[in-house]
């Protein structure tokens, strides 16, 4: 084990997929299927938000386009 483990971009992305999967799994386990569509939409938005944050220094220009 290296002393200063730092996840790579790929690992971070995979971890986030894992988190999203865990969230969906939690809802299905609790039997609340009806929340799945809502959470899927929100996760999609979340991906967009994260992307915009990663390039936040040009965010104003991106939003101009929309």
């Amino acid at each position, binding site marked *: 084990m290296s002393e200063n483990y730092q996840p790579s971009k790929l690992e971070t992305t995979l971890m986030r997929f894992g*988190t999203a999967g*865990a969230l969906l*799994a*939690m809802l299905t*386990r*609790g039997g609340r299927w*009806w*929340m799945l569509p*809502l959470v899927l*939409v929100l996760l999609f*938005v979340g991906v967009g*938000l994260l992307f*915009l*944050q990663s390039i*936040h*220094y*040009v*965010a*104003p220009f991106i*939003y101009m386009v*929309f």
Partner: protein
Amino acid sequence: MGVLRRMWLTVASEVSWRLPGRPQRLLAAFALAERGSMLDMLAAVEATDRRELRKKYFLHALDEGRHALVFAERVRALGQLGRAEAAIEDSGKLVEAGIVGGRTLFERLGEPEFLTFVYVAEADAVEQFRVYLDRGLPDTRTQDELRGILKEETFHVSYSRAEVDRYRKEGLPVDWWATRLRLRRLWEGWLRFSRDFGAVMSAFWLGVLYLLVMAPFRLLARLEPGGWQTPAGRPGGDPLVAARMEG
């Protein structure tokens, strides 16, 4: 830089000090900034290897702490505070405004560049306060306080300049650092604007999404009732597996 900056400061101060409610917010921002630099200077006392500088850092920190109190006092005296008042006390605001948070300035920059930063920031503050004094802003009581503060800031400028000069003689690129620090300040201003702008826009789009998507789900959701409830079942099996879940 000097002439342009002074012109900008003159115009900006004329506008900003005269808007109603604005002086309070500016003074609150000063109070916050001074408190932030007190923390920076105290962190430097803790971290420095140059023991001969510790007392200077310490006295500098005490000055900044006192300035923070003076500015806070002025905010209160001017009245009609609302959010300005709360901002002075709320240390979370220091993080929000990007004044402190994460690693300390000293850790990020290292001693020579830290001192360059101190010199640049203090020299700019002196210039800024001089403009306010020249224009008679914002009121005579605050002017008196500013005069006192200016005297102490001059000490900060002089000791940090002496150190910066020493580093320059040693061949360290202090002038490049100074320029880079000024550029970085502009860049950080842009980032803040960009972040705030992004926050407003994403809040807007999330609001739109809320109105479009949430309504039908409303029929299926209800708030929990009061009183004791049976706890939800926990997943059985390997406790280590369960401990990794839902995170």
